[in-house]
């Protein structure tokens, strides 16, 4: 166990660039010589990527991971693939659960006892006519006849009640299916919205509807009691599918609404300034919950065909750049908006240089923008159950 932990630590340190040269070469020689050890190393790497993608790394390790591991494009690509994989698995799982729920409803969607009741009630749906049952048709005592009907033909009462119960349950089931369909549609919409709107690592939770405009984040999750979807008491889903015991729709709990703190997109609007003074207005606060950074660059200038922005540290190291940006016009001012992953930023000062390309193809500098990045720890998730 200790050996395993030491091995994991070595793998992580290797991936985070923290081994000395000698240690690194020794580790590499080991994995080049030993396929099984290399497999274990890949598993640790997968786990690290997975934990980062899910936001489950401790703050300090998360920062190290972002600064070193995500420094090159191929590894960022691996992170994207991990996030996509988690989303795809989750979407598949959700679809499967939905399919199971529909099968359960189609076959009654009830507990064993209720299912038995329905099984006996179904033939009784064909209710014999009063004449056939020998009931009097005396109009003055219709209610008395009704009482007599139930009194004399005691089997008819459970029959009618069972039929009514079946109708109620069926209606309830339909409502639940509609609700689940809406949730799945929301999830699919969300995934496509992320795909269409940006390439920045979206929240790996497909059930999360991320409204960047409102800067709120609400996740709706169906609390289906399907054993395959129960986190608290996980069971073998194969066994679950061969012996399903889904609950009646009426037994299901209300949907849980998870409210996340509004910290997923960090935005800042910058003005070109002559000095490099840092104040509150040009300080960007990031937390581990931040999924994207938006930097607006405001300027007053002539029209350019397109704009380029280059992000560097104050020491001059290039961090990121974006070409062929288009400007938005708001009153007398224009602005361009940059959007990138927070992993690119460390806790330090940065400069964005905005240039414009003239119709003749010449590049002119429009301005430089200074800002500081401050990182804080994440906030806890809150869960609440909505009132009916």
């Amino acid at each position, binding site marked *: 166990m200790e050996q395993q932990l030491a091995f994991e630590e070595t793998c992580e340190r290797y991936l985070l660039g923290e081994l000395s040269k000698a240690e690194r070469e020794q580790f590499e020689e080991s994995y080049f010589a030993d396929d099984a050890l290399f497999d274990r190393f890949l598993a640790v790497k997968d786990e690290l990527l997975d934990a980062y993608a899910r936001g489950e790394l401790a703050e300090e390790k998360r920062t190290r991971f972002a600064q070193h591991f995500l420094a090159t*494009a191929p590894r960022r690509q691996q992170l994207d693939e991990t996030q996509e994989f988690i989303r795809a698995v989750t979407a598949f799982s959700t679809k499967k659960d939905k399919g199971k729920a529909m099968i359960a409803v189609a076959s009654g969607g009830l507990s064993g006892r209720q299912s038995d009741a329905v099984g006996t009630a179904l033939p009784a749906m064909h209710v014999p006519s009063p004449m056939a049952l020998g009931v009097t048709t005396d109009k003055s005592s219709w209610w008395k006849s009704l009482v007599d009907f139930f009194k004399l033909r005691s089997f008819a009462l459970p029959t009618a009640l069972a039929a009514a119960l079946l109708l109620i349950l069926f209606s309830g089931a339909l409502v639940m299916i509609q609700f689940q369909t809406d949730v799945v549609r929301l999830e699919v919409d969300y995934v496509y919205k992320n795909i269409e709107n940006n390439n920045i690592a979206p929240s790996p*939770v497909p059930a999360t509807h991320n409204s960047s405009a409102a800067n709120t984040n609400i996740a709706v999750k169906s609390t289906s009691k399907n054993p395959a979807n129960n986190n608290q008491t*996980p069971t073998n889903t194969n066994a679950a599918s061969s012996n399903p015991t889904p609950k009646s729709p009426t037994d299901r709990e209300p949907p849980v609404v998870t409210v996340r703190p509004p910290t997923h997109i960090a935005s800042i609007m910058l003005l070109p300034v002559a000095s490099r003074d840092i104040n509150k207005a040009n300080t960007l606060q990031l937390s581990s919950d931040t999924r994207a950074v938006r930097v607006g660059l405001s300027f007053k200038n002539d029209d350019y065909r397109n704009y380029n922005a280059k992000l560097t540290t104050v020491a001059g190291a290039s961090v990121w750049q974006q070409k062929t940006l288009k400007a938005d016009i708001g009153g007398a001012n224009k602005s361009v908006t940059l959007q990138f992953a927070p992993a*690119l930023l460390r806790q330090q000062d940065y400069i964005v240089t905005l240039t414009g390309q003239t119709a003749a193809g010449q590049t002119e500098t429009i301005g430089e923008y200074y800002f500081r990045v401050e990182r804080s720890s994440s906030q806890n998730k809150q869960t609440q159950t909505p009132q009916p």
Partner: protein
Amino acid sequence: MALSKTVWTLTPDAFERLLSSFDSDREYAGQKYENTRRKLLEFFEARGSHTPDEHADETFNRVARKIVEGEVIENLNNYCYGVARFLWMEASRGRAKEPVVLDDDHAPSTVSGADDEEREQLRQKREQRLECFEECLRKLPNETRTFIVEYYREENGLKIEQRKQQAARLNTSLNALRLRASRLRRELGACINSCLSCISDDS
């Protein structure tokens, strides 16, 4: 990263000889080749290479050339590692002379600058990938599919704890569980890539 490629080109015969140096059985040789390639990718990634694929291919080219030239290689994996280290040193020497290359491909296309057609293509690509993923997942045996879905799907709460429970239920160690998931994921990845290449061939 500067990479002075060999003038020598890899011929089919040289590649065959490289493969047979891994193993006399062609199938095993292919697996071993892939495995070594993966190790080379990790090696170059760990050194901050922006093009680990290119570096890995160039390493194999150089090794194949040595084999064709008659060099007797006792341990091919170790030999590849040695060549990779040398190649990286060589590439690093030229690095200081070059201007800094920015990762343009990481820059997300902003809303204002993005082309609709490009976005639609991206969406279609992702959709195809998702279809391939589902197809590959369906090809797996039930038990394996259930395992991978349970291991990777997004849940509310800490995944680590859920995986511990999964390991306990399957009566295995967390480490074995992780290894299995990692291997299955790589197999799925290979299946998805093959499915995607079939789609692109059809179109």
